[in-house]
């Protein structure tokens, strides 16, 4: 019997696993996808929000602000790109200035430092913003993060500290048994004393397997444009319009890989696996973004994508034990600002909720760090020269656009966290994320995967089961 089973390996499940790995416990993570962080945690704005925006007193406000404070150290430990570039919430009409004041007040209540800027100050910081700008609210603690490695490295660190991860296993049923639960997946049956439901969009379905619930999770889609790294400094902060009941609005930001992100839209959809994009929605995203930044070079577009928010009917994060089952803990409805909140949520769940039902004892030898990821493209010339000389595979380039070498790919393939698909390689290393979208590097990545796992190239998957790239040997 496991001590604890975590269902779902998104940001929440991964940080739960990492936090639990600090304690003497026997933890299993079950994830239906072929990779960690393969659903909402990979398709979002990746903003480490400051926390000025959530209603004071809510869980969203609390965990956002706490999470934000934890980010610098965690990203250092986990070797994740994080840049505290600050955000600007931009007023483009005179009457919006009073709203900014209210937001600043709210920030104060949430414990978030803010500063009101005049139009001139904004334009000096952000020359590409509309000349109609009337002022903005600066939140210096906001930042951007690499969402792909955030989740992956948190899980890797958990595995290095003893957590077990089973990918490609969907939980189908949960039964109460003596001293805990029996968890059935489509592959096997497990038992655990405590179960934590971190199943994102499907946390409602999972929760219902144990007892009736009063809340619902409704998928709300956000569609985006990704632009190439055409020019550093096109925008320097995360730029938000004023928030509305639909959320934080269409933002324009750079990413930690110096791309630019424009989005998201906000629309409820029927299906929890509908990640399609729609030209009309995107056109609207573009129009709205252009009100704030008029000259966005959309010909630099390299991709469009969408993510689904797990929007709870309760309007706040649901982080509590099931009503009749204190050793079944729901961590549900974690929509934005869920990514930034994830380390704080994990800490709370473990220290307050798990500890109430399972005795927690700190390990003596917990290691908070992952093995350093080496990226020659980020090194200084002399350093790179010496390193590549000593490690020749780092001189063999695979991905032209993002400069990823064979050495980096073999590195991620050799870690404790499984890296099974072309997409997993892409999320770990960025190979295929550039303007040619894998046109040059995908065959090389595919062959490296086949070689590493000793299987036929025909068996290599892009992502999910059935997503093979090669269908047949040629004549």
């Amino acid at each position, binding site marked *: 019997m496991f001590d604890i089973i975590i269902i779902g390996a998104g940001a929440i499940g991964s940080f739960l696993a990492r936090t639990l790995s600090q304690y003497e416990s026997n933890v299993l993570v079950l994830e239906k996808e072929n990779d960690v962080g393969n659903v909402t945690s990979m398709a979002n704005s990746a903003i480490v929000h400051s926390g000025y925006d959530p209603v004071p007193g809510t869980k969203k406000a609390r965990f956002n602000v706490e999470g934000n404070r934890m980010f610098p150290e965690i990203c250092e430990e986990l070797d994740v790109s994080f840049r505290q570039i600050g955000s600007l919430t931009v007023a483009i009409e005179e009457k919006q200035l009073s709203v900014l004041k209210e937001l600043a007040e709210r920030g104060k209540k949430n414990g978030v430092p803010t500063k009101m800027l005049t139009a001139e100050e904004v334009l000096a910081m952000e020359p590409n913003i509309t000349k109609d700008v009337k002022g903005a609210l600066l939140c210096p603690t906001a930042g951007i993060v690499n969402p792909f490695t955030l989740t992956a490295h948190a899980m890797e660190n958990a595995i290095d500290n003893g957590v077990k991860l089973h990918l490609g296993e969907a939980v189908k049923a949960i039964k109460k048994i003596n001293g805990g639960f029996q968890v059935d997946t489509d592959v096997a049956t497990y038992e655990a004393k405590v179960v934590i439901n971190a199943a994102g969009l499907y946390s409602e379905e999972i929760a219902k397997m144990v007892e009736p619930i009063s809340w619902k999770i409704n998928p709300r889609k956000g569609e985006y444009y990704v632009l190439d790294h055409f020019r550093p400094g096109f925008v320097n902060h995360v730029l938000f319009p004023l928030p509305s009941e639909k959320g934080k609005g269409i933002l324009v930001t750079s990413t930690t890989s110096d791309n630019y992100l424009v989005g998201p839209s906000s629309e409820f959809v029927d299906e929890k696996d509908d990640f399609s994009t729609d030209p009309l929605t995107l056109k609207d995203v573009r129009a709205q973004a252009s009100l704030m930044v008029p000259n966005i070079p959309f010909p630099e*577009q*390299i991709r469009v994508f969408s993510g689904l928010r797990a929007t709870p009917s309760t309007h706040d994060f649901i982080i509590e034990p099931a009503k009749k089952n204190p050793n079944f803990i729901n961590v549900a409805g974690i929509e934005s600002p869920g990514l930034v909140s994830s380390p704080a949520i994990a800490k709370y769940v473990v220290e307050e909720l798990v500890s109430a039902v399972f005795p927690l004892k700190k390990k003596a030898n917990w290691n908070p760090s992952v093995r350093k990821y080496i990226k020659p493209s980020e090194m200084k010339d002399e350093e790179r020269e010496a390193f590549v000389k000593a490690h020749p595979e780092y001189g063999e380039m695979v991905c032209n656009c993002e*400069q990823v070498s064979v050495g980096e790919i073999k590195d991620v393939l050799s870690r404790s966290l499984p890296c099974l698909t072309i997409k997993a390689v892409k999320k770990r290393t960025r190979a295929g994320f550039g303007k040619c979208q894998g046109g040059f590097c995908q065959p090389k990545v595919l062959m490296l995967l086949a070689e590493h796992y000793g299987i036929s190239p025909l068996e290599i998957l892009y992502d*999910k089961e059935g*997503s093979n790239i090669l269908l047949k040997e*040629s004549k």
Partner: protein
Amino acid sequence: MVIEKDLVIIGGGSAGLAAANAAYDSGVKSILIVEKGPFLGGILNQCIHNGFGLHEFKEELTGTEFFTRLTVESEKRGIEYRLNSFVTKIGEDKSVYYTNKEEGYVRVKAKAIIMSAGCYERNAGAIGIPGDRPAGVITAGQAQLYMNEYGYLVGKKVFILGSGDIGLIMARRMSLEGAKVLGVAEIMPYSNGLNRNIVQCLEDYGIPLYLHHTVSHVWGKSHLEKIEISEVNDALQPIKGTEQVFECDTLLLSIGLIPYNNLLNQLGLPTSRSRGAWVNEHMETKMDGVFSCGNVLHVHDLADNVVAEAKVAGKAAALYLQNKLPRHEELILVEPGDGVGYTVPCEIDLENAEEKIPVKFRVRKPTKECYITYTFNGEVIKKIYKQTIIPSEMEIDPIPKDLFKGEKSGKLVVSLTPKEVK
């Protein structure tokens, strides 16, 4: 490691090889070609079909044969090259940094640089195809690479978006490999491929070509399951009610090529509307001693034209190294006018120019019975009648220097004008 070279050529495809040979013949002996691939020849390695060399070698060759000739020429001259070597950046001081397995990370202090790194394919991300993003939506060149270099087929039931030549050639190749090619959709009302390819690759195999159609939706949670095509209106938007659905496992994209000009973009050098660098008549960019030619400058439909352009760049690099290519303040700007997409060059330094200046461009749409009009400072200096002119074929007009009548600055506009009907 730091080494020194007079001329570094980035990319050993047809442009790089031809430029190297020309520079050598013009007196430059210290040359290094840096090529990222495992052999010279670049994209031509994928072109095992024929249709090359008619201009350059006066006989019809396959792509592979064509570059073999260029390689033999450069080997005769003993031109140095590195394979599997990737250029990571160009410094402001014209240092070229490359990395490979054997040497590690190398800085080459260059006196002149020719950029000839080729192009990449427009892909699904760039056009944001509506619907899902499953496996099985792949560029034609990538499918070609999997087939020719690795020996695998990406699909058994294939639809093709875009009638570019690579797509058409792949339609035939996949059919020969036993795949079923269901059709080709082209958003424009005309094909972008060479006529010969339409006949030999589609008509001969009974593959329908849907002109003025695009893919309006893609379905597939993991692998491609089906696509929908629709007719488009003049604004190229899908027309409701014209949808047709095809079940297929592969959507090949042959929707255009884009200069892969990152390294020069990173230097902040200005670009033209071709998305390649801004160059003058000697293919020199806005940075002294840095030249560009081939598909990284603008996409060519004939390798022969690439070679011709690369020779200009190679000779110019030699002149530059011999201090015989001064910059002058007075320049003639070349601008695309009505109906013209871009021009190469973007400016002419008349004092340096040869007697005839080749001006290259593409028209925006197929036009019958029209003139290409060259207007210099408001005055028409040349008019060429064209029975038909199409975007898929690059135009080259040699403009005699004396037409500028010694005027060294101003604006030359290239436009398409309809034939006047009296």
